[in-house]
């Protein structure tokens, strides 16, 4: 049994030590894997706010991941082809600047989360799950038929976008950027979970009637949580697109939604570090099991099944011996 706090510190430590080792051992692929893990962790932290704290079982978070990705893809595509994104009513050019891309990714995915959330929150329970899944599929098919931006084939970006003062083409520098964002998002989520909003949202998950009775609107709390959640996952999508220098409708697929949820479940739902541990574990599994067998998803499925049936606390719960989340 390891105390959860140590386990969390250990996890962050791995995010520092492994890339550091990879840098000295000249293993750029390991750095790329760790970048992938950091980005997945950010995406899953986003979902954790909606699902872990707010209790919203969203199977459509690929929407925000994809929107982040396409925000990057479309802006960078126009920048690399020297075409305007829009000429009317104002001239909008593409950009290769990460901060601007991130801002657009966050804004557009928040907006999408607001619309999808407002519609989906008219219902609850299984309906919510089915509706979020359906909206994910809507974006998937929309991008497939969106010939202007590559349709089914997606968009390739030749050179990774830039960040002031960094050489993002160097794997370790891009990793550092993603890691810093991961830490900031973790800090934000930690503060959020302790904040008045966090308390109210937490209660809205457990006892919505109580929240209503003390004079607050549980649906509005959940909607705001869904928007924050979508924005963070959208940011992760933009980073993921930049990691691969490629976006395609796959980012919107239901499998992507499922995977984001798996990161969260592997680590432990509702725990601050759950998504981080889960994303790291997923990338490790993908790498090792994927190397052993082409059919590694079978093993992933079995592992997931075992966690659901026998160990709800995820890996953190197993290691710390505490199934339930409380502090």
């Amino acid at each position, binding site marked *: 049994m390891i105390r959860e706090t140590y386990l969390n510190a250990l996890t962050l430590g791995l995010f520092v030590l492994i890339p550091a080792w990879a840098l000295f051992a000249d293993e750029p692929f390991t750095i790329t894997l760790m970048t992938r893990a950091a980005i997945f962790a950010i995406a899953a932290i986003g979902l954790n706010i909606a699902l872990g704290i707010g209790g919203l079982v969203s199977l459509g978070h690929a929407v925000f991941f994809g929107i982040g990705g396409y925000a990057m893809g479309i802006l960078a595509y126009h920048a690399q082809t020297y075409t305007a994104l829009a000429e009317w009513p104002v001239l909008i050019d593409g950009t290769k600047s990460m901060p601007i891309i991130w801002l657009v990714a966050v804004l557009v995915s928040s907006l999408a989360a607001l619309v999808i959330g407002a519609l989906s929150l008219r219902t609850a329970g299984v309906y919510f799950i089915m509706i979020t899944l359906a909206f994910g599929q809507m974006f998937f098919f929309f991008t497939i038929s969106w010939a202007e931006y590559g349709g089914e084939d997606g968009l390739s970006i030749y050179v990774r976008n830039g960040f002031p003062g960094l050489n993002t083409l160097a794997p370790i520098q891009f990793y550092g950027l993603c890691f810093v964002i991961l830490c900031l998002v973790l800090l934000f989520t930690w503060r959020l979970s302790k*904040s008045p909003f966090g308390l109210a949202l937490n*209660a809205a998950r457990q006892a919505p009637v109580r929240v*209503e009775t003390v004079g607050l609107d549980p649906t509005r709390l959940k909607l705001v949580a869904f928007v924050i959640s979508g924005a963070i996952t959208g940011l992760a999508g933009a980073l993921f697109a930049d990691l691969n220098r490629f976006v395609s409708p796959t980012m919107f697929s239901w499998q992507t939604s499922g995977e984001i949820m798996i990161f969260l479940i592997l680590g432990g739902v509702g725990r601050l570090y759950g998504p981080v541990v889960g994303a790291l574990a997923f990338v490790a599994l993908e790498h090792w099991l994927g190397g052993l067998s082409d059919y590694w998803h079978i093993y992933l499925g079995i592992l997931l099944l075992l966690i659901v049936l026998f160990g709800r606390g995820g890996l953190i719960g197993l290691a710390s011996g505490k199934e339930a989340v409380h502090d």
Partner: protein
Amino acid sequence: MTDPVLQTRDICKSFGALRASRNISLDLKVGEIHAIIGPNGAGKTTLIGQICGTLKPDSGAVYLRGEDVTGLATRERAQLGLGRTFQISSLAMEDTVLQNAVLGALGATANPWRFWGDVLKDKDLRTRAEEALHRVGLQDHALTRTAELSHGQRRQLEVAVALTKQPRAFVMDEPMAGMGSEGSKRLTGFLDELRAEAPILLVEHDMDAVFALADRISVLVYGEVIATGTVEEIRADAAVREAYLGEDA
């Protein structure tokens, strides 16, 4: 005599063929405890639902401090000063006792839109919550997880959460249910004092508590108020004896 704090006028509610509320007119005056009694299935829960805003009456109106609140949601009625406790505890079970109480205080501010500061370090909210816990005698359990509380303690916490809002009127749905005689006695004493602060509409099965506390009693049978009066009047009422107390005794 001032106007009633809480009032229902001719409210009716049917579920299909079942008429759960028939022209119910009740009021709750400053400083009183008004008990609602009646056999199971008499429509007490339906009545409370309409007063608190979880159910909408088919006709009739509910007034809170003179204002027609019939069309308002539960949370809006709460903001106007209606405090409610539930028959089946409705608390955030994974949270601590203190967190539940702080939630009540947060509700009173109507502003949960702060995303950064630690809510438990908010002096104002914390003071209010701790005062309320102290008043119901849960101060030593502030850091206990609500799920670990006994049945009776959860009832006390229900009352404490309602207290944090300093409501103008309380609606309490069987606060004594499942309490031991000791706890029941303590809560009786507490409610006795509380009425001076805000009047209480009390739905209760514990007749000892009702007769000890109530200034007035209304008897609800088959969705209809068959009698309203003081303890003595109700004890003496023939219709009540026949319809209700007779069966019970």
